């Protein structure tokens, strides 16, 4: 079931005018920001399907940029996010794509600064609810309903077990887990949804494990 909580239906509290095109877009932007871990210096934002056709009317552009600035769906600063981005040195470019996506409300966000880049594809499935379908070229499924860990690592034996051991030590139960890699022995990604909230200390401990490149925590 895609929707698990009554507050997916009654809610979110948000700045109008569209839950999918404004609130959902803000959430996609905010996940990108949270995964990147800091405010980026530049952002290329690609709109597909209905997003491409109507983003101006729905404020999808200001909402995604608001998300990149770490604004929540009900933050009135969303309305002036383009000016705020300019003031804070975040250069934004929008692209209307012709390609037909699997979901009508699809956005691709490519952000970065001098220290790194991140590319993410998100879909807004209705009522403000989103799914992140791709991260740095890896396909993934994040319900956004449970705390989640995204762990970039090198594809070596024992890495998954060492991560699971740390989680077990802190009595954290894994509800859903996916592992994907681009090529044998190269960069890989673990997507782990858990039932308990994850302390920053646990993230630090995970980061120190061998073969781990980056650990990002996403909280519902």
């Amino acid at each position, binding site marked *: *079931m*895609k*929707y*698990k*909580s*009554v*507050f*997916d*239906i*009654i*809610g*979110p*509290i*948000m*700045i*109008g*005018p*569209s*839950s*999918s095109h*404004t*609130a959902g877009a803000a959430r996609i932007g905010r996940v990108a920001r949270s995964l990147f871990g800091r405010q980026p210096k530049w952002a290329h934002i690609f709109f597909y*399907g*209905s997003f491409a*056709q*109507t*983003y*101006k*009317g*729905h*404020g999808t552009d200001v909402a995604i940029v608001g998300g990149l600035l770490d604004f929540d769906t*009900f933050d*009135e600063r969303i*309305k002036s996010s383009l000016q705020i981005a300019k003031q804070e040195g975040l250069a934004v470019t929008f692209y209307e794509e012709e390609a037909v996506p699997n*979901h*009508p*409300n699809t956005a691709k966000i490519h952000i970065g600064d001098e220290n790194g880049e991140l590319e993410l594809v998100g879909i*807004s*499935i*209705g*009522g*403000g609810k989103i799914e992140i379908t791709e991260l740095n070229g890896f396909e993934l499924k994040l319900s956004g309903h449970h705390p989640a860990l995204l762990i970039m690592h090198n594809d070596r034996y024992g890495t998954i077990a060492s991560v699971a051991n740390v989680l077990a030590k802190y009595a954290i139960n894994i509800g859903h887990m996916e592992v994907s890699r681009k090529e044998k022995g190269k960069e890989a990604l673990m997507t782990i949804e858990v039932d308990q909230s994850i302390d920053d200390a646990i993230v630090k401990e995970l980061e120190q494990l061998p073969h781990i490149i980056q650990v990002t925590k996403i909280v519902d």
Partner: protein
Amino acid sequence: MFRNVAELVELAESQQIKIAEVMIRQEIEVTGKSREEIFAQMDKNLQVMEQAVMRGLAGVSSHSGLTGGDAVLLQNYIRQGRFLSGETILDAVSKAVATNEVNAAMGIICATPTAGSAGVVPGTLFAVTEKLQPTREQMVEFLFTAGAFGFVVANNASISGAAGGCQAEVGSATGMAAAALVEMAGGTPSQAAEAMAIALKNMLGLVCDPVAGLVEVPCVKRNAMGAANAMVAADMALAGIKSRIPCDEVIEAMYRIGETMPTALKETAQGGLAATPTGRALAAKIFGVSQT
């Protein structure tokens, strides 16, 4: 966890509890949050709805100038007392319009189930309070009841205009409101389901064709009519009228209609009212260029 309306009604009737209570218990189970916490969160949504209605009734205008001020016109008209339909219905309509006018003006609203359809549920709720005199708790419960029906639609069909057309947004909201009205008025869980079925049946096929891609025309007035439809459907169900097609099958039909609806009529601003000469002219005027 209930997967459809039949299971929802069965859970409520076998335990002799309200649909709102079924929803609250499930929420406790799924999220692990306490009843108080969940109730407080819904109460906050109710506050936002109340403030949006108040703000809209005081008069707002959107950035494009396409919408705003109609809630005020209706309230003035009701005060003159020479209306044709009925005071409660018109009050619901004006409060639904108020909410969506605030939404169009990029004000703060609570998506119910979406922003474009945010007016129907609060519009009907705040209209019947005078007649039914609910407690604050019952008003919060109204939202849980509406949420329970919306939950089924969202999981079995869609609440996204881009995926299912306006029937998925205002249609869903209308069904949710009709069901919640029945429960608040003292109807049974099955009567609530009948109201949802009757209301949604009359929203089937409704396309999403926003002029200039804005959530304004025809969205604000679709919420108005959704509120009126919900009120009448609730009265019909309370009168004992049943839908020949069960609620779950109506939802299934809505999903299939959405799947076969052309993309031009699903929130792309390429068909329907958006593609009329006036719709195109408004888009050109607002954005300074003509949209294709």
